[in-house]
Each structure stands twice: as structure tokens, then as C-alpha cells.
């Protein structure tokens, strides 16, 4: 009898510790869908120097001033010149390549420019692990003259803080921008296993 009572007491004490705050929003909006495991790049081998440049051009200008840019936004690029590898054409001029705005940083005080980081280029028949593709576009960087000015005014407080009102430039990717990403055909083969034991903390 005592055992039964003690089991009940234990259950009563331990039940609150299993109370889990559920993320109902995620359950409602995401749980019904099946998502593929995100891309990982763990089997790399950067030994090869063989590299094929891919010249791109945006199909439609984007600007942080005029357009509403958001993270995850898809952008289209056009291949500017035919791309050859091993005397074979691997990408024809005019092929459309999609990419993604990875991160967008708004412009800020002290001349800090807006920044658009574009990556995840989706090129037909070229796997992502063989691409060196990150493209960063910044607006006019006024920090280079704002900061010396700020430091010069620092002995006269609060005049140094007036430089805060100088804002950096907007970032735009236009059709004039010559974007170049690189395809390394021999990258991505697995490294030989060196059997190093990972020491656990």
C-alpha cells in the first residue's frame, strides 16, 4: 500500500516538470507541412584551383530606396556570356539564374551604408557546394570621412554626436553591375577520413 502511495506522490511531484510550453503558432502554420532538411556543406575538399567564372547581370534593378526588399526575396540574374568548361558549353548566354537576398541591412547613422547580401544561386546542373557565390552590394559608405570628423569634434562635447545625423547611402543592384561568381568543378569531393576522435566536453 505504501508503495502505491509513494508512486502516486512521485507522479504528482514529477508531473509539473513535464509541462511543456507548446509553440501553437508553429504547430498551426508549419507542422502540417513536410520540410526538407536544409542544405549543409560538410563534404568539402578545396584542393583544386580549377575555376570557371560565371558573369551575371540582374534582370531588374533593385534599390533599397525605391523597392521593398526583404530577406528571402528571390532575384533573377541573366548569364552575360557563354560559360565553357572542358571545351563544352555549360551555361548559355541569357540563361536565367535565381538567387536569394540572404540579409538586408538598412542604412544607418555615422554614414553606415545599406547592404544587400545575395547568395544561394540556383544554377542548372551546378551544385551549390561547387560555387563560390556570395555577392555583397553596399551603398555609399560615408563612414570614411564621418569618423575622422567625429573624432576631431570629440574634445568639444556634444559636437561629436552631430555626425550621427549623416546617414549612409542606399544600396542598389543595377543592370550595369558586373557580377561575377565562381564555379569550382572539382570542389566538394569528400576528404579522406582521418579517424580523429572528437573529444567530448
Amino acid at each position: 500500500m505504501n508503495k502505491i502511495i509513494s508512486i502516486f506522490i512521485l507522479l504528482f511531484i514529477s508531473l509539473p516538470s513535464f509541462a511543456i510550453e507548446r509553440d501553437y503558432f508553429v504547430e498551426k502554420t508549419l507542422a502540417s507541412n513536410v520540410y526538407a532538411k536544409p542544405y549543409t556543406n560538410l563534404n568539402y575538399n578545396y584542393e583544386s584551383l580549377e575555376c570557371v567564372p560565371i558573369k551575371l547581370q540582374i534582370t531588374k534593378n533593385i534599390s533599397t530606396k525605391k523597392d521593398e526588399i526583404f530577406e528571402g526575396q528571390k532575384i533573377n540574374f541573366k548569364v552575360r556570356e557563354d560559360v565553357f568548361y572542358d571545351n563544352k558549353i555549360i551555361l548559355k548566354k541569357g540563361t536565367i539564374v535565381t538567387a536569394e537576398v540572404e540579409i538586408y541591412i538598412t542604412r544607418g547613422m555615422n554614414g553606415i551604408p545599406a547592404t544587400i547580401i545575395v547568395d544561394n544561386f540556383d544554377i542548372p546542373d551546378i551544385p551549390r557546394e561547387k560555387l563560390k557565390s556570395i555577392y555583397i552590394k553596399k551603398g555609399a559608405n560615408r563612414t570614411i570621412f564621418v569618423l575622422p570628423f567625429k573624432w576631431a569634434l570629440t574634445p568639444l562635447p556634444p559636437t561629436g554626436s552631430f555626425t550621427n545625423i549623416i546617414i549612409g547611402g542606399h544600396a542598389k543592384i543595377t543592370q550595369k553591375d558586373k557580377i561575377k561568381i565562381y564555379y569550382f568543378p572539382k570542389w566538394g569531393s569528400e576528404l579522406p577520413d582521418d579517424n580523429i576522435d572528437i573529444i567530448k566536453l
Partner: protein
Amino acid sequence: MQSFFVIICLEVSWKYIMKKLFCLLTVLVLLFIGKSYAVQYDVTILNDIMLQDHVSEIGTKILNANKIDVRMAFIYSKEDDKLIKGEPSLINRQIVFYDKDIQYASDDNEIAAFLAREICKTAESYQGQLRGIVGAAQVTFAPKKYEIFFDKRAVDLMVTAGYNPLALITYINKTYPQKRYTVISRKNLATVRLANIYEYIYTKYPYFLANNAYISNPYYQNFLLTSINNRQKFQQKILSGSKKAVKYE
């Protein structure tokens, strides 16, 4: 008289033996203490080597997986000398994982979370004019703006290197203080940062929320509890289909 002499001799020899024994015992005790100190010293060094190796391994894995082609070194240190020497990740391109930081990390994902943030910061110190001086100055002068950027970028780096980005939420939740005001501060409120990370993971890597490995983690649960208002704001944004940035609190 003879017996008296014998007794005295015996007493003298007894005292002599006791003295010798005492000396021997002292020597033994000293030897034992010395040895145990040596053993302890060895254990500390071994522990440091293991931690250093582990930190370097995780950091280098993140660099390689993300094809980050700028050099940086990973150092495990017991002394925090940031105030004297400045931010090592921006000045020397050395990512220092201090003892006080590592004690918050419960698993490899959380170590990766810390390192990924610092990698982003160091990579930024290679950007811009004067061999990165301008980039580093920007990070120093606008830490608030870059803080959110580093958090988001760290999520990307962690995912590509095979780590769970939700660990960044748990790590920040247990490590960073919660200030009262953000307007006059050089830092964002930790709750704002956490909400931004959550939004970023939700929109870009929903897999990790749909298959949440951290749902029973007490620190993640605490984040869910303390972020109800922010998550409600985000929910409204998703349901309305808006693309505007949410003002988190």
C-alpha cells in the same frame, strides 16, 4: 642506579625515534601534496588542451562549410582582457572564447552559436577600405545595427555547418542581460534579438521549428514563455502576409 640509566637511555632513544618518524612523515606528506598538485596541474592543462582543440575544431568546421576565405584563429582563454586590449575579433582577427562564455554552452550547437557570431564579426573586419579598418570601425560605432546582422548571419553559418540554429536562441537567452531601454543604449534588447532570430529561422529554415529538437530544453521553453508578445506580433505579420519589419520589444 643502573636501571635508572637504562630508563633514561630508552627515553632518549624513544624521543629520537619519534623525531625521525615525524621528519619522515613530514617528508611523505610534502611529497604527497606536491604530487597531487602536479596531478591537478596536469589535469588542468589537459582540460585546456581539450577545450582549445574542441573550440578550434568547431570554428574551423564553420569556416570551411561556409567557404569563408578570410583567415581567423580560435583561442580559448581564461582571462578576459577585452577592456585593455580591445575587441580581439576586430583588431587581431582572433576569436577568443573566454572561460566565462564557455561555461554557458551546454552542447556543441551552443559553442557553434557563439563562434558563428564572432566569425561574422571578424569577417566584417575584412570589409571596406584601409584593409578592413573602416569595416571594423563601423561595427564598433553601430553595434546595434550589426548585432542583429551577426545574429542572422550566424544562423546561416550554423545551418550550413550542420548545427541546429535554435541553439543560438538558447545561448543568448541564458547569457545576455535584459536592459531597460534600447533608445539610449548601444545594444539591442535581448528580447528583440531573440525575436529577430526566431523570425529568421521561421522564414528561412522552418525545418528546425517543425522538427524542434529544443522544445523540451528549459532555456528554449523560457524563451517561448518570455516571447509571447513578440511571437504574437510575428504571427500577425505572417497571417496578414506583410513584408514590413516588425517592431519587437
